[in-house]
């Protein structure tokens, strides 16, 4: 009965799907059952964990293209995505299909965003940590300290057979995620962020995808060189340290480790005629699955309003701290953001 107990959370239709493919999924069912029995049970066995590794590798090392549909608070937007990997080089092309045209080209840490209608281009040198998750060694261990990974059977996404997993948090400081991974390649086909009461806060899913396409780096590189007629804005975050900037968290927030700290301008350089570009200190904390940004900047009373907001899974808390203004943002419950804000302290 254990497998059934696990499946019940998925809803009936999924259970039916799962049962029809049950024979193919026997090992996974056993896994799910085992994980669900005692709360302390060492979560997920190596089998489930190896899936996480597969998902991780597939996303960066496979060549694929498809249409990704993101649903946040009932707002749907889709993008055409192509990803190529050649050795240690990554190429990505993203074209927004709804609303105002926007295209993003990425070659390793260089990211070019084009707004063809406005003839504006922005070139960003991304923080390397944001692009090479491999440097985050140990983050997988960190993840399993905070989440249980449960196998939930099979499903179909974008015409492909998918294996479903639930990453269930072990505490109240983070959200659960349900993942659909391609059975063959491991590519993540769909990811849902779930509220504690099981509501879907955000969904990102391929509506169609081709895995194993021919690598076409030129289709990314060529447009990155053609910027004639575009107004080009450049920005590059500057690495620094929270303590070096005179700040610290006086008590750590459970499970979150600082992974980066940068000084950046929130408005791209050269846009000064509209709004003065604000330099902010952004510190990023990760629990292996999700991350929280803490932004610190000088308080400007005429512009800053204390408050909180939520959009999909992304929550935001804004409040003054002495002569400073603090914005904490992350795909975590508001209470977690409050912990960050409360722990932040000026050293000098």
């Amino acid at each position, binding site marked *: 009965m254990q497998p059934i107990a696990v499946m019940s959370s998925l809803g009936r239709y999924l259970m039916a799907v799962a049962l029809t493919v049950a024979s193919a999924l026997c090992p996974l069912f056993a896994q799910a059952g085992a994980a669900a029995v005692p709360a302390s049970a060492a979560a997920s066995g190596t089998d489930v964990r190896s899936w996480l590794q597969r998902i991780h590798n597939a996303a960066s090392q496979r060549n694929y293209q498809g249409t990704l549909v993101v649903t946040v608070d009932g707002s749907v937007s889709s993008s055409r995505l192509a990803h190529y990997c050649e050795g240690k080089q990554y190429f990505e092309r*993203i074209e927004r299909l709804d*609303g105002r045209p926007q295209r993003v080209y990425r070659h390793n840490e260089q990211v070019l965003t084009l707004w063809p209608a406005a003839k504006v281009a922005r070139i960003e040198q991304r923080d390397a940590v944001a692009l090479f998750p491999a440097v985050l060694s140990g983050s997988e261990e960190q993840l399993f300290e905070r989440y249980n990974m449960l196998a939930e059977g099979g499903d179909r996404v974008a015409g492909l057979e998918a294996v479903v997993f639930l990453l269930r948090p072990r505490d109240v400081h983070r959200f659960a995620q349900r993942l659909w991974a391609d059975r063959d390649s491991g590519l993540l086909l769909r990811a849902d962020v779930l509220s504690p009461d099981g509501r879907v806060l955000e969904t990102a899913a391929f509506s169609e995808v081709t895995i194993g396409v021919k690598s076409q780096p030129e289709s990314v590189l060529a447009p990155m060189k053609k910027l004639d007629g575009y107004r080009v804005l450049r920005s590059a975050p500057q690495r620094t340290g929270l303590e070096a900037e005179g700040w610290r968290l006086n008590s750590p927030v459970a499970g979150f480790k600082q992974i980066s700290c940068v000084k950046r301008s929130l408005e791209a350089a050269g*846009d000064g005629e509209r709004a003065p570009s604000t330099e902010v200190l952004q510190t990023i904390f990760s629990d292996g*699955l999700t991350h929280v940004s803490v932004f610190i900047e000088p308080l400007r009373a005429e512009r800053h*309003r204390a*408050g909180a907001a939520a*959009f999909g899974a992304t929550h935001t808390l804004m409040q003054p701290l002495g002569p400073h203004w603090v914005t904490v943002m*992350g795909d975590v419950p508001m209470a977690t953001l409050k912990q960050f804000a409360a722990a932040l302290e000026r050293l000098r």
Partner: protein
Amino acid sequence: MNRDDPTHQRRQQALSALMDGEGAEADLACRAWREDAGVRADWHAYHLIGELMRSDDVRCAPQHDARFLGRLRERLAAEPVVLTPVSPIASSAPLARQSTSRRTWVAPIAVAAGFVAVAGVLVVTRVAAPDGTTTDRSALAAGQATASSAAVPAAMQSAEGRPIRNAELDRYLAAHKQYSSTSVLAVPGGMVRNAVAAAPGR
């Protein structure tokens, strides 16, 4: 009207407060809006200024708003008033009196309706300006404005009960989402989520 006139200043302050979601002097602001074409122009100008300050791009020409408002007012004026409540006193009164009584009812209701609709419209144009993706959020914001003091969607409400302006937040969101791929999962299109959720629309 003299711009230094204290009444005028007070009206402007009330208008500005109303824009920020503070309803303390909403009556004053609404009355001013109804009576004074200058105040209506200020209301529009404030939103335009706000939009310029908060967003990186103003997508639609201000004349468009003005034309829309003009048409809206004409249509409202031409609208037959079928739902106007006729008070028992009025209906038992002579015909002439009834008609004046109806007029006094109609004007404020029509103006109030126009006001609410205008507030909604302005929020839509303002929030939707930075890029197409925020349209749904703007719909939410419009909902707030239309619903006025009534049910404001909890998700969009600030701790102080004031709605947060999204164009401002989008800058932070864009910076935040750049780190989406730090997740062990490195969701394909982590950047897409970034692009979708927080594209700063320059």
